């Protein structure tokens, strides 16, 4: 069993009108609880690998557009971008929606993380929409004697005609 605080991350995938988007492929990857990726390019890390944690998962949203993962909370990690640079805890998310334009790759952060304000990647997004990348602790998602729960809804672009992917049929 992987080491680290066990968490449930769940939420709805919605379009911009707030309608659920069923059948969306959701893929995640993340560091382990020590802040190390199971990837050869993270080999200079001083943090240990966890032999029981690959750091990836995938699911498809159900008829209500809901996804749900059980994982461990990833640790923050240094990344040498600038002096004493650390990434806040985050989980990478990839979503394949109903159209080319709904392709979304993003990162989910944790409510209350004091390192968010220091992270150039989180802050690369305009300030008014940074909050859309933050999962909130939700005691209704938390399961007794098992895992704490976080809720994060994801909004992707819905179907629309576009210059590169004209509607067919």
């Amino acid at each position: 069993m992987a080491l680290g605080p066990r968490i449930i991350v769940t939420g709805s995938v919605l379009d911009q009108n707030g309608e659920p988007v069923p059948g969306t492929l959701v893929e995640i990857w993340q560091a382990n609880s020590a802040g190390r990726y199971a990837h050869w390019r993270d080999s200079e890390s001083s943090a240990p690998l966890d032999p029981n944690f690959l750091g990836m998962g995938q699911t498809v949203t159900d008829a209500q557009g809901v996804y749900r993962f059980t994982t461990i909370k990833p640790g923050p990690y240094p990344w040498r971008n600038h002096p004493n640079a650390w990434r806040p805890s985050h989980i990478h998310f990839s979503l394949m929606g109903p159209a080319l334009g709904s392709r979304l790759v993003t990162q989910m952060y944790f409510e209350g993380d004091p390192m968010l304000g220091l992270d150039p990647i989180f802050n690369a997004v305009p300030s008014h929409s940074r909050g859309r990348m933050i999962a909130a602790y939700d005691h209704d998602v938390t399961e007794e004697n098992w895992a704490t729960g976080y809720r994060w809804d994801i909004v992707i672009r819905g179907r629309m005609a576009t210059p590169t992917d004209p509607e067919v049929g």
Partner: protein
Amino acid sequence: MASRGETPSQTVGPYFSIGISGPDENVLASDEVQGGRIRVRGRVLDGEGAPVGDALIEVWQANSLGRYRHPDDSRDDIALDEGFTGFGRAATIFETGEYLIDTIKPGPVPDPEGELQAPHLCLIVQARGLLNPLFTRLYFPDEAEANDHDLVLRMVPPERRSTLIASQEDGDPRVYRFDIRLSGEGEIVFFDV
């Protein structure tokens, strides 16, 4: 007016191969799938022309008869292929920036006005440092007449159209080369979608 703000895009980062892009995802067609086999290879290059060794290329295409496996493509008179989704992924090789996709040549798909588009692959390019995915298309050099009439290619300034047309590799008509220059001189055309 949209009622919900889109979740912002973030960089794919250097470790995406943990979660997306498995080793065989760059092979789109099994032996049973109809259509002419093609191989697409090339390099992803940055603004200085240096190879980008951690880029992800996703491909989305119609089958050999020109039909997408997608709920929006309801043209039931055109057969779908069992075992062909039309979606694949290739990660570039770290040292060289090279990628390789094995697939079948797509058939032509109608544009919104009902005219046939030239056969093409839709490509999505992502890489460490890019905040958003880049959308482009690959057209085929042996489809000159169809390319001349293609609605999307005709929207591109004539002097830049060649950046979207693959070249034929010497010696093998089934192999196409398509280098993806992300910026700088020779930057290929990317589309807003």
